[in-house]
């Protein structure tokens, strides 16, 4: 009589490597979603690169002019919008004058959203900041890095008027602002091209202006070499960079709050990576044994 062959018992590791990917998606969703319901703000250590951004702004006396370039769109809001809000809180709180622009069409609109949010703060609202005197939004202009290069000679050539259609010669804040020589710092929020790399290449290395930046996490590692060479004075890398910056200015915002979800998600992913590797080596060992037995 032929005995019916029983299917081979699957080991724990066999089951693990063939786990339905939807279970992983579900675990990630739970890890990210559940912490949002808890008001937990992990303590953040401010790293030197973020400290560089903070110190660059702190070192400016009241009334200094900062050029702020918003080079991102709504797709990068979760990472960059908290940085924008924290920057506005910090710089407007220190009475710096802001010249806002964008090399991405939606960038200046993101700036307006961040300003709306920051103007709800009591300490900013009571300053009674005036458009055209304390801040101005030049809007978007096409041309990518050529715009940066051209602004080194004349802002007015690239931006003859602001986003509201007012000639910049009629804007009080723009009086005496001809090119990069007349701004004290550039702050760039970037999600890709054109962005921080182009600002380094065309503004910093040609016109020797001081630059700090906030980048999406995907882009940030490519910008770190510019820190070591001094081409960038500081960088906020991804949500963690934003959270550190919020900690530095002493006003925790959404970036710090989101970091709990971020931490939980990273723990889950790390566990999966470790389990995946254990399964890989365990099954490899098992296969080797079977091959040795022939």
């Amino acid at each position, binding site marked *: 009589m032929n005995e019916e062959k029983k299917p081979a018992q699957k080991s724990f590791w066999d089951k693990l490597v063939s786990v339905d990917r939807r279970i992983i998606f579900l675990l990630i969703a739970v890890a990210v979603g559940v912490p949002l319901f808890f008001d937990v703000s992990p303590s953040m250590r401010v790293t030197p690169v973020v400290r560089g951004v903070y110190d660059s702004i702190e070192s400016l006396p009241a009334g200094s002019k900062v050029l702020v370039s918003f080079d991102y769109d709504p*797709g990068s809001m979760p990472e960059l919008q908290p940085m924008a809000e924290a920057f506005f809180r910090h710089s407007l709180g220190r009475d710096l004058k802001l010249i806002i622009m964008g090399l991405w069409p939606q960038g200046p609109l993101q700036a307006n959203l961040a300003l709306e949010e920051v103007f709800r703060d009591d300490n900013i609202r009571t300053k009674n900041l005036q458009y055209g005197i304390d801040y101005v939004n030049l809007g978007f202009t096409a041309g990518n890095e050529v715009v940066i290069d051209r602004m080194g000679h004349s802002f007015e050539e690239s931006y003859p008027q602001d986003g509201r259609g007012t000639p910049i010669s009629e804007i009080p804040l723009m009086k005496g602002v001809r090119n990069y020589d007349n701004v004290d710092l550039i702050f760039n929020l970037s999600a890709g091209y054109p962005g921080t790399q182009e600002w380094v290449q065309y503004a910093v290395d040609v016109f020797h202006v001081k630059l700090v930046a906030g980048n999406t996490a995907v882009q940030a590692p490519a910008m770190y070499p510019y820190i070591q060479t001094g081409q960038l004075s500081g960088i906020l890398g991804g949500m963690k960079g934003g959270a550190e910056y919020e900690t530095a200015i002493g006003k925790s915002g959404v970036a710090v709050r989101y970091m709990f979800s971020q931490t939980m998600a990273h723990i889950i992913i790390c566990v999966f990576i470790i389990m995946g590797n254990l399964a890989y080596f365990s099954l490899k060992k098992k296969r080797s044994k079977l091959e040795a037995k022939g």
Partner: protein
Amino acid sequence: MSAEVVGVWIGALLTLGIFSFLYKDNPFYKFCEALFVGISAGYWFVVTFWQYFMPKLVDNLVLAYTVLITQGRIDYHWVYLLGGALGVLMLLRLIPSIGWLSRWSLAFVVGTTAGLQFTRYLQSNGIIQIRGTIMPLFVGGDLNATIGNIVIVVGTFCGLIYFFFSKEHKGAFGGAARVGILFLMITFGALFGYTVMSRMSLLIGRLHYLFSDWLGLIG
């Protein structure tokens, strides 16, 4: 129901539609995907027309014409005709018999971009970065700086050795190349970690939108 509420509902349902692909492909996802592609194409067409074509070409040519009529002189803004002509040549790709003329426009774009980028990359990402690795290996009284400098110099040197393929990677040369691979692996690991953080940030943003703006469950 206000327009804002309708907008939030549309945003939430479209988010769920896109997320539904994680379970499996379905008509709701297909609809959301097609809607996104269509709206993106329309949006960028409008942006291109109003932010690029009108201000950069039409407005400048109108200005040049106005100067000619009112002051009787030829203004430099007429040079934008050249850009317009190159744009027209690009569109000739739609006519196969004379489509080759679009190569002139492409040649202009490729040539100017290459010329512009070459010098900037060489300066910012080449010369200045090389200069950045010329540093003292030992910094008296500062262990952190000493370790940092050694890591940068050894990492750069060994990384470059790895990409040198004219000599077989054997002996000391091969050892240096293997150290280079280690540095590259660590770099890729860091890049992966940052990419994970970025993607999780986007997920957090979407979930916060659903729980806060749509459902009002969190503040």
